[in-house]
């Protein structure tokens, strides 16, 4: 009975996995085929090669896009880690009056969808002359209510005796944060960092409207750009670029799996 149940569960899981992976596998397969074969609809061709990857790396600005994405997502991750940590520290450990009320107001901003902020943000960035520049891509994302919320929950787990220990040692608030709180919560900080990096790597709308040149365009917008260029009907190569863009996220996901499973669940139940 139990074995039957188990078998059915695995069957269901396998089915869902195939369904989810199908587009990815199709893309990967297509990236190995010459465009001519794809255009003719001959998906079962056998002349597979890495030619499309070579072409993608050599003839398109893909490397530049990757570098742009790396800089953008990296800067935002650093900015969020720094500012969210400081904000969460203030919400948890400072003697601020009306901390809880302020935090509630702060949380409300989490419920304001990003789409609603696009126009005012765009105008601000434009006024600063930051359009088509790293500053415009990163500064608006340097903090997030979600990040502050997540880190606040993590910091609240710090045992009260450790807080007293820090007090009697005479640590300043920053020393306490740096020497005790940050190392204590480091797995949560790593999780949050990975999460931020992945989210930012996949940003689309904001870079689409604020970048105009290949000098600052990140990969996701770059891909679209490649596809829309008149000369570019090279599907095989486009698929190859898409596959290359996937690699960094996959690496991060696999490396960070342990942290994600542990911490996102913990935050969920304890929050």
């Amino acid at each position, binding site marked *: 009975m139990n074995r039957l149940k188990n078998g059915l569960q695995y069957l269901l899981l396998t089915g869902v996995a195939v369904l989810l992976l199908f587009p990815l596998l199709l893309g990967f397969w297509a990236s190995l085929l010459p465009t001519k074969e794809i255009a003719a609809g001959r998906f079962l061709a056998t002349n597979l090669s890495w030619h499309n990857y070579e072409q993608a790396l050599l003839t398109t600005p893909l490397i530049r896009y990757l570098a742009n994405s790396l800089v953008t997502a990296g800067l935002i991750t650093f900015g969020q880690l720094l500012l969210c940590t400081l904000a969460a520290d203030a919400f948890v450990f400072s003697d601020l009056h009306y901390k809880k009320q302020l935090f509630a107001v702060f949380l409300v901003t989490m419920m304001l969808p990003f789409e609603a902020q696009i126009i005012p943000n765009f105008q601000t960035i434009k006024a600063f002359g930051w359009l088509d520049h790293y500053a415009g891509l990163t500064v608006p994302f340097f903090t997030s209510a979600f990040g502050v919320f997540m880190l606040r929950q993590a910091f609240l787990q710090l*045992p*009260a*005796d*450790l807080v*007293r*220990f820090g*007090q*009697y*040692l*005479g*640590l300043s608030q920053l020393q306490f944060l740096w020497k*005790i709180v940050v*190392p*204590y919560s*480091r797995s949560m900080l790593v999780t949050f960092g990975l999460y931020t990096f992945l989210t930012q790597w996949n940003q689309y709308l904001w870079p689409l409207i604020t970048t105009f040149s290949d000098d600052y365009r990140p990969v996701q917008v770059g891909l679209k750009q490649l596809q829309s260029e008149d000369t570019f009907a090279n599907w095989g190569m486009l698929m190859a670029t898409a596959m290359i863009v996937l690699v960094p996220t996959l690496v991060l996901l696999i490396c960070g799996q342990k942290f994600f499973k542990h911490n996102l669940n913990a935050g969920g139940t304890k929050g």
Partner: protein
Amino acid sequence: MSIRLTNVSKGFEHTQVLSDISVTIAPGEFFVMVGPSGSGKSTLLRIIAGLTSVTAGQIYFDEREVTALPPKERNLSMVFQNYALLPFMNVAQNVRFGLDNQQLSANEKNKRVDWALDLVHLSGLRDRKPKALSGGQQQRVSLARALAAKTPLVLMDEPLSNLDAQLRAEMRAEIIRLHREIGMTLIYVTHDQVEAMTMGDRILVLDAEQIQQLGTPLELYNHPANEFVAKFIGTPEMNIVPITVNEHNQFSLGTEFAAQQAVPVPFALPAGHYHLGIRPEQLVPLAAAGTAALPATVADVQQLGNDTLIFSDCNGQQLVSRIPQQFEVAVGSRLQLAVPPQKGAWHLFDAQTGAAIKEGVADGGR
């Protein structure tokens, strides 16, 4: 280092926690503060540490006023109930962490770490992370960290309450040994009266914002100042029952005098209502019925191996006796409980205030 508190009070927004506490602690003393949860004992410790401010009163360390000084400038160390170890550092690093903000050479710090770990017998585990240690070992690390600072005053906030009974007994002996070897002033907070009795040179009993009694363990046990202390110190609890005494120096249990149950008082006592306290070991069954005995019905018997506890019902009052041997008695059978003849075993309290009555009982008091 001597510590003196004068008229210390502490209130939070709507509640008073401590009122008018004055006490002097001698240099090198093992001073225990005990009380039920919510009695303000931990707050008082944090006030001495400088972690909590006072609403009124002054604190002096060696006659230097420290009331407004932060903990760092009070030159003390602290041991916490939950150890407060840093999970991302190993044992030696944890001990060293407490020295980081002291002006010591690296060489001296290393020496202190080695010395402290040796004192608590943890030298072999110096590279382990706290997670890989038992609760008792973690608390040893925490002790070593406090001792490494070599401060003249060490504060301990219920350091043993997270340990199981066997480890607790072991660590109790350990802390007493460390105190003897090093000779620092030690202020120790606990809710456990056994810890208080076995460890302290002197004990401060706190309850309801106030000092209930201050004294050596035996003073507290033999001469409790009021009903609260009488019940709090000693297990099983002291029997405390209302009694009524008539003009013929006879008494009976209850708030009304019952002539048919009257028993003579073994010393002169003015007529009136009292609360009588008798330790369980002083209330033992008589082999045969006598005049100076209370008739009782056995309600429950607990065999402890070395001791036997007999819970009995006497005229509607619950009494407990402790007999220092194995004693067979059936539940429901009748017993005669001997009223102790010596005055010292009689603890009389004012029926209204609960304060110990000293006058009229003459040589029983201090």
